[in-house]
């Protein structure tokens, strides 16, 4: 008790620590513990040591699927940080300089973000289904039936289509963060640059972008973490198997079908799933650490 009395701040934070431990720390420790066992969810656990990790990283079949999924995650994260971020930046700037109809565009761009992802999954079915979807039907009607495609059934374009759908949905959120930050750019600076004869592009690259440090940090961090843990839209579109030829298979879907079993099969393997999640935890943690150091170096963190 003396320990606590001498440090009153501990008494203040103990409820928070208790809740955090119960809901975050303990499950993480349990997951690490579970990854060394084999367990189907009911009944007893069997200790198997590093077998799960060996299977994940060296078994030819499983490791190929895992590395494919991980590669998809990294590819996707790259797309988020470059393409999606770029589009959000450009849109935010266009709204900032108040082009015609800015208020209308702001609403329309942000609207897809509030639609729930389950509805978006269904929406992709309505648009992209090869037989019943709107897209193929319109192509047939305007006489371009040669462009009809399997869309998400074509392994070559499924990934690109997925990024486009997610771009459509998520441009709104990041754009608003950039837009809010742009409002902080002092008007006097902009006016001074106009007087000095700087064109639109120079203004954009030399004045506005350098001042967007905080929002860049936020968006990049969020984008990376989101890219590494994405699950909902690819699952709704491609199912637990991750689409044709695992083209839109991501690590979380791989985790889902290993742990809970795929469609009808029902083989649950919680130990292996815990192993996947511990591995991903290590990967995401190291990437986040590197990223925050990198962002600090570029003085994006004010």
């Amino acid at each position, binding site marked *: 008790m003396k320990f606590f009395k001498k440090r009153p701040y501990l008494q203040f934070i103990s409820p928070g620590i208790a809740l955090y431990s119960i809901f975050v720390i303990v499950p993480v420790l349990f997951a690490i513990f579970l990854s060394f066992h084999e367990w*189907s*969810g*009911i*009944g007893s656990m069997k200790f198997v040591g590093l077998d799960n990790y060996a299977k994940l990283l060296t078994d030819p079949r499983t490791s190929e699927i895992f590395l494919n999924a991980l590669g998809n995650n990294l590819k996707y994260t790259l797309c988020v940080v470059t393409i999606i971020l770029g589009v959000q930046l450009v849109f935010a700037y266009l709204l900032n300089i108040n082009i015609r109809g800015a208020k209308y565009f702001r609403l329309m761009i942000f609207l897809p973000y509030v639609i729930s992802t*389950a509805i978006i999954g269904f929406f992709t*079915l309505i648009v*992209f*289904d*090869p*037989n*019943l979807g709107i897209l*193929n039907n319109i192509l047939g009607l305007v006489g371009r039936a040669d462009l*009809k*495609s*399997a*869309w*998400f*059934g*074509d*392994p070559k374009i499924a990934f690109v289509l997925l990024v486009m759908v997610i771009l459509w949905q998520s441009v709104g959120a990041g754009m608003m963060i950039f837009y809010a930050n742009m409002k902080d750019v002092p008007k006097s600076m902009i006016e001074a640059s106009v007087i000095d004869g700087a064109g639109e592009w120079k203004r954009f690259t030399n004045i506005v972008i350098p001042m967007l440090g905080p929002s860049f940090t936020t968006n990049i961090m969020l984008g990376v973490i989101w890219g590494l843990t994405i699950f909902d839209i690819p699952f709704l579109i*491609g*199912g*637990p*198997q991750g*689409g*044709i*030829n695992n083209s839109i298979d991501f690590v979380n879907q791989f985790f889902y079908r290993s742990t*809970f*079993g*795929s*469609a*009808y*099969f*029902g*083989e*649950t393997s919680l130990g292996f799933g815990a192993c996947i999640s511990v591995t991903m935890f290590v990967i995401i943690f190291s990437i986040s650490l590197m990223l925050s150091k990198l962002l600090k170096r570029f003085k994006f963190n004010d």
Partner: protein
Amino acid sequence: MKKSFKFIAMLLVLVSVAFLALGCASSATTDSPSAEDTNTQTAADTPSPQPSAEKAKLLVWEHTPQFEEPLKQVIEAFKTQNPDIDVEYEIKTADQYYNLLATTIQAGEAPDLFWTNGTATSNYGSYASQGVLMDLTDKVDYSIYPEAAMKLVDIDGHYYSTPGATADTRAVYYNKDIFDELGLSVPKTFDEFEADMQTILDAGYVPLALGGSFFWSTLFTFEPILAAMEPDWLQAAAKGEARVNDPHVAAVWEKMIEWGNKGYFGVGYLGVDEGGQLLAFSKGEAAMTITGSWNVSTFSSNNPDLNYGAFQLPTKDGTRPMIVTYACGFAVSANTEYPEAAVKFAQFLASVEGQSIWVKALNGVPGLSEVVSEDPVIAEMTQHDIQVESFYSILGDYASEDGNPGQIMEEDATKVLSGNLTPEEFLNSLDALMQ
């Protein structure tokens, strides 16, 4: 200004705590752990005024909305005969069913009765060995069932589930209007079937709708084509006398790939899932589709005006093989609060009366000679010359001790159609996991 702020903040905190308390209280009575896609219905016609302390309440879980109607009707009939037992049911979606079931069993709140796929999936055996299922061997009358139906519920001589009285088969459903328009009749040989598909393609319809992105649609189309092309191999394999990486089986996959490339499955069939496949047929965009006998009522409920029939795919010489797999029924939880009532319900499900109601409501193919179906499509579909096994059942029957060919099949079958895996590689990987 500050004071009213404080007051509003206090109010908000109270309201959120109240909601939290309400949520916790109601989650103790509602059963489903996942809020989406569950459908809770009380099958009671008359609301019971004051449930007496002894009134038994049973909860039944079913895995797909396709079986909601038969279950509802069986429950109605049961309740008229047993007014002192209250029965409710919940329908889950098929791809979440086993996750939800495992979670609820683990939480100790398993429903009193729940559907399983019997010995067709491995978790039935593990549930039985861990004492999750009640042993029904001496409690339910199984005498009317043929051995093939009992195979699905039997673990080492003990029965843990009611059998299914629908003998499920797969058939080629065809759109009678399109056939009439093109002057086609039900093909009598395999070659005639292929020629018909070309005619239909030239006329601008999709000859054979297939949901290529969904494994089970591919499987249910593959099995009848295998039976029509290689019935001898199939019958030998059912006895354990043929391997799955036989060139005959590879030839069937090659045939399917060839049909896909010719456009017989429609443009971009690899992007279609099961729902899309069934809808394409229901809407009349596809002239034919191969799927299970359990979908007879799906088409008429999708499109009541659809004029359709079904036939078994014939071999080169006109023999019609019919694949028969028995469905499975419901298992009883070992920890049910009302064991007597649960067993009574299980017995009713397994009786001729219960099964007749089920088969009729589902429009299924009866597997018991005592149960007769009146549906004309079923009558047309079940005309056959020889009975054969399903390929998937053979994989399950002859799987090696720790091999899981069903899982490999589920993960890789669609890759064969998309050209990412050759049929030989695929079949070799399956064969490696067989005895």
